[in-house]
Every structure is written in structure tokens, then in C-alpha cells.
């Protein structure tokens, strides 16, 4: 930083610079660590559902607005093309918000009585992020869909 003669009083300017430098020095690793934690949180949430299975894409629609003006209430619909019979039905649909403090949003459990694998609700998004849907089928397979949502005003507290 700035060199000073011993006994000099730090001027307001050098003090400000010093604080700014210190803040920057701390802020960078802190942000990086936070981002890493969040990535792990949603990845863990996905792994907890699918285990070692590789979810496939298609036959699964995750409907969300492209831009959500209010992150406190974002309408969404998840739907899977499925005959919903005893032999071939969707057992569960999971919704994960990748950058929320708690990524798990909801798990919907369906039955052959459901007749149609479609659920609508409203979720909170802390900021602009990807939302993931995972459908769990009766034959043990998984389907996955991902949608980016731009959030103008974040939900979740604050």
C-alpha cells in the first residue's frame, strides 16, 4: 500500500484507500467461496434425488416466465407426458431453484389416480438463476428440465 514516514498521521485519503483495498482483498475470496457453496447445495439436492442415475431430457416441460418482475411469487407448471397407468406413471416431480438459499422448492408425489402428470404452483426466486425440474418415473428412470429465469426484484427475505 502507500508508504508513510513513521509517526505520520494517516490522512483520510490513505485510510480510505487502505480500507477499500482490504475490503476488496476479503471480498473476492468470500464471494468465490459462497458461489461454490451454492453450486454444491443444488448439486447435492439433485444427487439426493437421482443418485447415480443419468436423467434424460424430453417429455418433461417446466414452464416459467422468462423474466420474473417479482421474485416473491413466480408462477410455474411442471408436466410430463405419461399415460399415468399403474405400470407406467410419474411417481414424483421435484423442483429446485439453483441459487436460492435453500435450493429445494417442492416435491410433488403423484399416483395413477392423478390421471395427468401436471402440477402448478408459485415459487420464490432470490435472484436470476436456473430452475430445475426432475421427474421420477415408475420404472426408475428420471427426466430433467432446466429453465433460466431473470429476476428483477428478488424474493426470499431481505
Amino acid at each position, binding site marked *: 500500500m502507500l508508504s508513510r514516514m513513521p509517526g505520520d498521521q494517516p490522512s483520510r485519503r490513505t485510510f480510505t484507500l487502505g480500507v477499500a483495498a482490504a475490503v476488496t482483498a476479503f471480498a473476492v475470496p468470500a464471494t468465490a467461496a459462497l458461489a461454490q457453496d451454492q453450486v454444491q447445495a443444488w448439486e447435492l439436492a439433485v444427487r439426493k434425488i437421482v443418485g447415480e442415475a443419468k436423467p434424460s431430457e424430453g417429455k418433461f416441460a417446466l414452464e416459467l416466465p422468462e423474466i420474473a418482475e417479482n421474485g416473491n411469487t413466480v408462477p410455474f407448471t411442471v408436466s410430463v407426458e405419461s399415460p399415468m397407468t399403474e405400470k407406467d406413471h410419474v411417481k414424483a416431480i421435484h423442483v429446485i431453484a439453483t441459487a436460492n438459499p435453500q435450493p429445494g422448492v417442492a416435491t410433488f*408425489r*403423484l399416483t395413477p389416480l392423478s390421471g395427468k402428470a401436471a*402440477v402448478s404452483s408459485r415459487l*420464490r426466486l432470490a435472484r436470476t438463476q436456473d430452475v430445475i425440474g426432475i421427474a421420477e418415473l415408475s420404472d426408475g428412470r428420471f427426466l430433467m428440465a432446466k429453465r433460466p429465469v431473470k429476476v428483477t426484484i428478488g424474493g426470499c427475505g431481505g
Partner: protein
Amino acid sequence: MTKPRIKLPESAKVGEVIEIKTLISHVMETGQRRGTDGNLVPRSIINNFTAKYAGAEVFKAELHPGISANPYLSFFMKVPGPGEFEFSWTEDGGKQITEKAKLNVV
């Protein structure tokens, strides 16, 4: 929690797939928000919703703080015959509200 609102079709035929809409007033406090005193407001949400028809489970939802206040849920059922719905919402702490609704099967 207050009295929930439920929307069913006016009538339905056996084998028809119908949409069921439910809404209940609830703050769904996330536990992440700070109150005016600067302290975190403790989490208080509806964490579970169950829909049964004629005693059989049709649909269940496990809800987390990411679900908006006044949780709205829409889902479907293939009408197996005449019967009555039983919907229940469970709050953190175990408090439960149950609401019944008869389906007009023609």
C-alpha cells in the same frame, strides 16, 4: 392458516381427468428474513399438503421455504367414481387444517 379455497369442476364424469385448484392463506415465513428488530424471523411454513379422494391418496406435496406465501396448488385426478375429497395442510409444528369437498359425479 385460515379457511382454504378449493375449486372443483361443477360436475365430472367417471374416467374424466379433472383439475383441482387449492389456495390457503399463509405467510410461508422462510426463516431467512430479518424483522424490524434486526433478528431473523423464525421459519413457519406449510410443509405438507395431501389430497385424498374416497379414502385413496391422489396427490401429495412436500413444500419448502421456496414456495410463495399463500401456497397455490393445481393438480389433476382421473375420476374413479363418486366420492369426496379430503384435503389437508400441515404447518411446521404439526398443526393441520382439513377440508372436505364433495365431487358432483354425473
